[in-house]
């Protein structure tokens, strides 16, 4: 949608300029204008969803739709600062709406309480970007396919305890600009004598360079055959989080997916209240998926079960910050996007960007 809809006529008011001053100084007025003309769908209003919502509303998108059909529970709002205390039993998106709107009255924030599975294809196409959190893998693959055909930017993300990831698909051709320093020519001013009329070159002057990046679909990103020689060779450099999280093809018998498989098998995420049982199941799933790949189970050490329960607020902040900024970059068509996964390990403080694609 970004390329077909003319957004340049969006005018930034003096009021907006005052509020957005510190970020316009970073990404420029043009980027802010594009952002100001963008509509985003955010699915899932748990801890990570709340972080992404906050970041997009503060940045100043035109509209944000919060979609979640589930009810508020103690566990689901452990890392959720938009839901007021005492909202148990209410719809999560609805309960988040008021606080979200307070963050920036200039953004049109809506709540949608219908299940995302029930939405027709066209629903997703009214947005410039769609961000999916807490969704099952096959649903993510479906929405990714619908959106990427129509140039709607797709983002997915999840947080499990100390671990989190994000994925992005900005389509086969994502155009953006980057700021480069203007090349300063070696000074010739002195030879012209002191009376040259030529203005001096400011060493800090910059110029915009147009660039293009290409992305693969989520399905392609997940269909890596880890038994191939080439894949095995790159395995050493692959973050263990790739396997720990849900990043693997659903239909493939080689699917190394622990946490998403848990979500698929159980219809929920691991619960701290059933730590002992869920730990056993997680270890079993870990063994199954790694063995099916011909991979050693020590790729994901046993201790992982202690660190992947619930959504940890600081991990939501980190992943939601990176994810939020990637959405801002994509919508404003400013700066090189991260391709196509970001993995965060909160125990190590390490955040890796890596490109996974079958081709």
């Amino acid at each position: 949608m970004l390329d077909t809809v003319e957004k340049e006529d969006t005018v930034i008011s003096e009021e907006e300029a005052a509020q957005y001053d510190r970020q316009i100084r970073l990404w420029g007025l043009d980027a802010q204008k594009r952002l100001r003309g963008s509509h985003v769908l955010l699915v899932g209003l748990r801890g990570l969803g709340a972080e992404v919502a906050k970041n997009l509303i503060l940045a100043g998108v035109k509209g944000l739709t919060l979609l979640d059909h589930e009810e508020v529970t103690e566990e689901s709002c452990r890392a959720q600062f938009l839901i007021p205390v005492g909202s148990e039993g209410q719809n999560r998106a609805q309960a988040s709406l008021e606080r979200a709107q307070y963050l920036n009255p200039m953004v049109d924030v809506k709540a949608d309480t219908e299940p995302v599975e029930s939405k027709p294809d066209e629903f997703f196409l009214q947005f410039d970007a769609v961000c999916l959190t807490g969704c099952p893998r096959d649903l993510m693959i479906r929405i990714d396919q619908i959106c990427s055909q129509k140039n709607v930017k797709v983002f997915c993300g999840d947080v499990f305890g100390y671990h989190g990831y994000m994925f992005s698909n900005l389509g086969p051709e994502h155009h953006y600009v980057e700021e480069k320093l203007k090349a300063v020519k070696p000074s010739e001013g002195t030879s012209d004598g002191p009376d040259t009329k030529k203005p001096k070159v400011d060493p800090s002057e910059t110029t915009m360079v147009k660039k293009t990046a290409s992305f693969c679909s989520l399905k392609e990103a997940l269909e890596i055959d880890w038994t191939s020689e080439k894949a095995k060779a790159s395995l050493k450099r692959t973050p263990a989080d790739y396997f720990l999280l849900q990043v693997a093809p659903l239909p493939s018998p080689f699917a190394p997916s622990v946490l998403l498989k848990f979500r698929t098998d159980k219809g929920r995420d691991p619960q701290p209240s059933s730590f002992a049982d869920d730990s056993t199941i997680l270890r079993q799933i870990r063994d199954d998926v790694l063995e099916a790949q011909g991979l050693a189970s020590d790729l994901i050490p046993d201790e992982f079960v202690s660190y992947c329960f619930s959504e940890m607020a600081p991990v939501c902040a980190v992943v939601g910050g990176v994810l939020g900024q990637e959405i801002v970059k994509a919508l404003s068509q400013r700066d090189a996007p991260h391709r196509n996964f970001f993995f965060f390990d909160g125990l190590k403080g390490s955040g890796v960007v890596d490109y996974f694609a079958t081709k």
Partner: protein
Amino acid sequence: MLVGSLRKELADSVSSCRVLVVGAGGIGCELLKNLVLTGFKNIEVIDLDTIDVSNLNRQFLFQKKHVGKSKAQVAKESVLQFCPEANITAYHDSIMNPDYNVEFFKNFMLVMNALDNRAARNHVNRMCLAANIPLIESGTAGYLGQVTVIKKGLTECYECQPKPTQKTFPGCTIRNTPSEPIHCIVWAKYLYNQLFGEEDADQEVSPDTADPEASCESIICSVCRWLFYLCSQSMGSNDFDKRLRAILTAARAGASNQDGDIKRVSTKDWARSTGYDPVKIFNKLFKDDIMYLLTMDKLWKKRKAPQPLDWAVVQEMAYIQEEVSGQGLRDQQVLGVKGYAQLFCNSVETLRSQLAEKGEGAQLVWDKDDPPAMDFVTAAANLRMHVFSMNMKSRFDVKSMAGNIIPAIATTNAVIAGLIVLEALKILSGDLEQCRTVFLNKQPNPRKKLLVPCALDPPNTNCYVCASKPEVTVKLNVHKTLVQSLQDKILKEKFGMVAPDVQIEDGKGTILISSEEGETDANNSKCLSEFGIRNGSRLQVDDFLQDYTLLVNLLHCEDLEKDVEFEVVGDAPDKAPPAPNVPEEDKNIANGNQDSALPSTSSKVPIEKDDVLIVDSDEEPSSSTMEAAVEMGGVKRKLEDVETGGAGSKRKRLFELPINDDDIIALD
């Protein structure tokens, strides 16, 4: 068992410990949210600032209706809305207030800085060292950020590594030969103070006749040359007469200037005598002073000479308004010369009446958010840029530079505040050895890392703050340096003390400076040599609030560079002498750190305002040095990852946290 994502024991210490958050701004708001959502219950937060509309794009605990209110107080109230069970104490105050002494700091298990200036960071660093409390430091600038952990005796402290000094400009560049817009902007800010604010001898704006570049030129020679030049131009006699008079006036001013600025009328007195007539001020600054500069013709042999601007001539010009970007914001448009002349005139009139309203002897204080003050600096800087043939800049761009504005976004602060809490959890688990410095990059490094954890470095045994017996050597001229400058410029500004007491180690224990108000005021205007201080003298300097004692060795030096009042030996890392292997005298010094074995004779921490974030290095050992291009506010700087020969450290990271002060310091 787990409570949320945390082990039960960890969750228990999280909910029972008491923590201090210093700063409730960009990082502070995100941090407070993360802390309560992680289960922290006892939090104290301090910030002396109030909420501004430009905070609202990231400081999400604040809304428009809170503008002008205390950040700490509003942050507390907002957090309680989603976590009413938290026990939060808010202080609308400066952390440098003596009420927050070492005992206060000892109340906490952990201190987290979310600050934007080096003075406060230095101070909290010292307080945490004195109280032996772990400190988590952090900073962000645009897309970049950094978190680190400081623990006395185990890690580097905030002041262990020298910070790159902010770019300063020689006085004569500002006054005589500006070559970049920033020189004109610094000049315009000085001019504001000279006209409306506190006059500062270091912020002179008129031509500097003592410019070494122009020194061999006698004024009389220049005047003769000019007369000759003007005659050859065969101008109308009236015009000639006016110009001649201007030159002679300028020459007279210059002559009196040469004998030490004593007889000269100050810029403010002169402006007042004209009734702050904008046209007269305009012509003095952009015509007469420039014509005077032209008489120093050595300056213009290899430079393009400036072109004087006459108010009357500007009025004849067509009004041209160039727009930077289509229908951009008013602030982003570059007005023409005529537009800026008009803006200059209007802002002088507004400021004149503001000054008059304040009453006799009042002063205005420059503030980038005060529209007439910002208009004045924009106009004056641009007119000077035009005079010196530079491309003019929009008010928006001038504000960035004049206000030293560091761009700031919510997402970077969110990431950094998340990382702070993760480090805090390691400290509470007793896993201090697992703590890391983590850098947030704009783009992944060659190892694909966007967030780069690095092992913490051990303390610098020569650090003038955390070494067991901190010591520095300072070069200065004992016959010229006043006690007042020793206190203000060296001890407070350079060495970050709040209220120093100074005793001369002359066997008699002469008190040179006392922190008790008024006790040693009589000494302030005397120079050091009057107290018997000479080459090799030693001063013992104590700051009781910081529980910090520094031994200062003085070296008398007659040949410091022009405009340099003192020099700290070993200030530049490459000039640092090797650590001397001298046996240590065993004296009891109050800093309390008994771990390190060697005294230090060099100090390395420059105090200035524009920190640069170095974003590189990797946890895995690497022999390669890498370079990172760091972008801040559209300015890219290439920074090198310097190798150190230091004890076992393969790389050197300048621990740099961006700050956001208003001042640009220029050397004069």
